């Protein structure tokens, strides 16, 4: 490997800085508001999880009954945090990769507020008792046109930027992000029209809903996270992607296989017999794009192991990619119709897998992206190395616990459910310890994200460090050769490009 890794020229840097500057308001809005929704969602998650093992907790308030808080928790996590983090990252990445400044920042910001407004009303709707009762689509019906309108207003600019990009090869991240941007409205419109407008067989409607849930995970969150990881890893390490053709193969295998997944949640239901099996096979096959992409990214990064250790961006991204491997393995393990599917179908495994995909994989990669993007668009560095480490480690502890619950606890619960000779009470008691584990895990994650949100808020207010030196996780000798952390303007001409990484 060549040691003379090319750094960018100043002209190029000014262009990119200009892009970052133009995007500051919409991107910071999405990331900060997303982090706020993440905190809200996790609070709701702690409450819901507590109600499973202690049903008397807060049970005098109708807004906090388990059926509503659990639905609100998931919808806030998906549409409040997941989508907004994705929007922030998408518009920044697409601008950078198309090398176009964002000229519609105000409009995107407004659309973001519209999206935020829509889901706020939707969440109040769920908690006050107007949920539609369709998993992941519980917002009252009026919310979805609002969300769709906001969505188009946000992403259309990225497509326009792509169209006017300078000549040159298109990078894999752009394919992943554009695919996600095309898949989501197709899936969203289909599900909402079929479930709210065109009446049909009620069981098949439940099937469409299950397909929708799977499509959001595999055809929106996964490609966004993969595109981001494929960008951040070579960007920070300077190494090329390990095998670019494997990356393209991974993308197309995701595109061809995953639209078939989802119906396995309805195994045994009176829908056409082959549908759940096709869904199960497709979910099992998710392992292939997941594993190949993960190996690709990990091999790229691990060649520069010390960079990964130092950089918050890469630590989170690699953790996310390992989460992807766990997710891919869980997808195989939990969805085998002959053996494990009957146990995982109606147990904590389903919820655990969803959290694995949204938090262990998607969110960690988004955190990595946030730690990368925010200093660039605010032109301030992160304030505290300790806060970043705290966020990282406590989140890891929490999500590992959730992964164990999902994979093992859910199966145990399912085994208890399938024991038809014992009374239901005895079967249900098996789930107890796993419910406790979930509550503890969510408390840990809440703690870590509370500090993350505070940190991000401070950065949004541009109170970060004014420095040309990045906030790294490990400083050599305990004393940075570039001056104390928190120093201001110690970088003069010619020192900014020192080989600190």
């Amino acid at each position, binding site marked *: 490997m060549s040691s003379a890794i090319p750094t960018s020229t100043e002209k190029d840097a000014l262009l990119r800085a200009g892009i970052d500057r133009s995007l500051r308001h919409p991107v910071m809005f999405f990331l900060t508001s997303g982090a706020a929704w993440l905190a809200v969602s996790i609070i709701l998650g702690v409450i819901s999880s507590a109600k499973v093992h202690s049903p008397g907790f807060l049970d005098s308030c109708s807004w906090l009954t*388990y*059926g509503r808080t659990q639905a609100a928790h998931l919808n806030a996590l998906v549409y409040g945090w997941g989508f907004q983090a994705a929007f922030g990252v998408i518009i920044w990445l697409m601008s950078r990769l198309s090398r176009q400044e964002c000229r519609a920042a105000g409009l995107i910001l407004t659309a973001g507020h519209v999206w935020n407004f829509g889901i706020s009303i939707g969440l109040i709707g769920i908690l006050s*008792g107007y949920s539609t*009762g369709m998993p992941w689509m519980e917002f009252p019906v009026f919310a979805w046109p609002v969300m769709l309108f906001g969505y188009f207003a946000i992403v259309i600019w990225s497509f326009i930027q792509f169209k006017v990009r300078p000549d040159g090869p298109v990078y894999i991240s752009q394919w992943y992000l554009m695919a996600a941007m095309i898949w989501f409205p*197709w899936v969203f419109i289909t599900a909402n029209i079929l479930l709210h407008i065109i009446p049909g067989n009620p069981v098949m409607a439940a099937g469409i809903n299950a397909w929708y849930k799977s499509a959001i995970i595999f055809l929106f969150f996964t490609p966004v996270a993969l595109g981001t990881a494929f960008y951040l890893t070579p960007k920070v390490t300077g190494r090329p992607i390990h095998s670019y053709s494997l990356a393209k193969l991974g993308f197309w295998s995701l595109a061809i296989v995953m*639209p078939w997944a989802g119906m396995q949640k309805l195994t045994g239901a009176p829908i056409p017999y082959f549908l759940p099996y096709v869904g199960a096979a497709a979910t099992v096959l998710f392992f292939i794009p997941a594993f190949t992409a993960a190996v690709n990214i990990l091999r790229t990064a691990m060649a520069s192991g010390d960079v990964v250790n130092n950089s918050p961006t890469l630590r989170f991204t690699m953790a996310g990619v390992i989460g992807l491997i766990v997710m891919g393995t869980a997808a195989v393990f939990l969805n085998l119709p002959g053996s494990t599917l009957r146990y995982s179908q109606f147990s904590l495994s389903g919820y655990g897998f969803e959290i694995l995909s949204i938090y262990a994989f998607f969110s960690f990669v988004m955190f990595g992206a946030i730690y990368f993007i925010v200093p660039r668009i605010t032109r301030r560095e992160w304030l505290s190395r300790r806060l970043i480490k705290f966020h990282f480690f406590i989140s890891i502890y929490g999500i590992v616990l959730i992964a164990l619950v999902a994979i093992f606890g859910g199966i145990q619960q399912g085994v208890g459910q399938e024991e038809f000779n014992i009374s239901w009470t005895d079967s*249900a008691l098996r789930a107890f310890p796993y419910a406790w584990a979930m509550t503890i895990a969510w408390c840990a994650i809440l703690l870590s994200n509370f500090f993350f949100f505070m940190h991000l808020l401070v950065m949004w207010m541009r109170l970060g460090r004014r420095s040309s030196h990045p906030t790294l996780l490990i400083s050599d000798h305990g004393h940075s050769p570039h001056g104390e952390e928190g120093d201001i303007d110690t970088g003069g001409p010619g020192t900014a490009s020192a080989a600190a990484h």
Partner: protein
Amino acid sequence: MSFRTFFLSLSASFGVAWLAVVIVPYFKMRSLEPLSMGDDASGTNVVFIPKRAGRITEGAEVYAENGCYLCHTQLVRPTYAGNDMFRPDWGGFKYDDERGDSRRETNAYDFFGEDFAQIGVARMGPDLSNLGVRVVNAYAMDISPEDWLYRHLYNPRWKPERRDSACPSFRFLFDEKDIKGNPSDEALEFAGIHGGEITPTPDARALVSYLLSLKKDQPVPDSLNFSPPAAAPTPAPAALIPAPAVGKEGDAVKTDAAPSEATPAPAEVAPAP
């Protein structure tokens, strides 16, 4: 790769799956052919429509709004997909007083009156497909079925054997007032947690009506009757060949396939006398 190629390939790969897994099955199942149950005593053709008595639509809304589907399922799976059919009281009753074994799997006609089948997400609590049957015949021995359900919704842990139930208390579906003079006619028999009298709200009434309508153990036509042939009499009515080939529910397929099947298909069972 140009954007055009990319977009066309993406549309093709997604579109095929979208058509095969979403659009085609949804539109095919919109119009299910009614299945014939044979003729009744007066010679008129009886059709299998498992209508349920009760305020199904309103009650299903209350059920959905309060997230009952997050802990309860409404799906009795066939034996190749789960052990639901082996439980004595989920698919019906194993020892029904009149019908013997009345259990059966959920079929596509079972959610008549609802827009969205609340198949359910997880099983913290038992399956509810036949809750109405269980409440009427097994749970509510000394009190009326409605009263039993009101009690359960108000405080799921009221019975000592249910003190570990994780079901939330739906007290907010009831109004509690201090007792002034005579108790009102609509008040329930048990006191609220503050000692007052309790009246169910319209939401509670709709929900209880819906829950009591959950009876999915009706006799089914032959094409949906999967009981093993050598076993005890399942109350299948006199077996006529069901409605011919336009059926979307596979009855025609099954009948045609029956002679070549190694395992006896229901159509080969001698008509029950």
